[in-house]
């Protein structure tokens, strides 16, 4: 079973994607999903995620394989946007389907920590008409270290 891993240039409908994923894995007793969206407030007008094609999707695909090797899953979905987004837009959807919920929770958690701090994305925000690059957060690296 291969993970469904995609890097998307255009907006996506997370509810439709999750419904299709769930329907494709009827034997799974549980599906855990995480949706990341552009937060509103704090004066952020837009967010842009840049990637480097030779590395970004291959790295996400390798992450999907690592997740499947570590947990017993029926299915794994990883969707990640790049390009410009505005508050409320979905950025990332991760879903893990498993016979037992703990595997699904852990797999989704692991995948998100690695997408946040160990994947080839660079983020900038526009506030007051000015773009600024976002520096990595120490918390992201601490999250990653949990997995050893």
């Amino acid at each position: 079973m291969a993970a469904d891993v995609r890097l998307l240039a255009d907006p996506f409908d997370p509810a439709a994607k999750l419904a299709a994923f769930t329907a494709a894995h009827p034997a799974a007793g549980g599906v855990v999903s995480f949706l990341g969206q552009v937060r509103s407030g704090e004066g952020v007008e837009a967010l842009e995620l840049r990637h480097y094609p030779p590395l970004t999707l291959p790295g996400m695909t390798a992450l999907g394989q690592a997740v499947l090797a570590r947990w017993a899953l029926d299915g794994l979905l990883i969707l990640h946007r790049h390009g410009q987004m505005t508050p409320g837009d979905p950025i990332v959807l991760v879903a893990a389907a498993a016979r037992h919920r703990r595997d699904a929770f852990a797999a989704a958690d692991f995948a998100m920590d690695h997408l946040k701090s160990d994947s080839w994305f660079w983020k900038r925000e526009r506030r007051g008409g000015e773009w600024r690059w976002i520096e990595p957060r120490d918390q992201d690296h601490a999250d990653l270290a949990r997995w050893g």
Partner: protein
Amino acid sequence: MAKLVFLGRLEDLAGGPEREVAPGPLEAVLATLPVELAVALLGDRVRIARNGELITERGGIVLAEGDEIAFLPPVSGG
């Protein structure tokens, strides 16, 4: 020609996402760039990929015709 690719904040310093350069030793190529940019590209936390493959040893890189060298600052992902 060879190509340098600048990701993240390095793009701002470089004034654009990429730059065409003459092939040759990377040190010689960097010496033709503005000092502030060259220093940033050589930062400890900047990774380098050559033709899409990360390299671990940055000494002795010689750019061939058609090579693409990408400079990858710390990621600040999704």
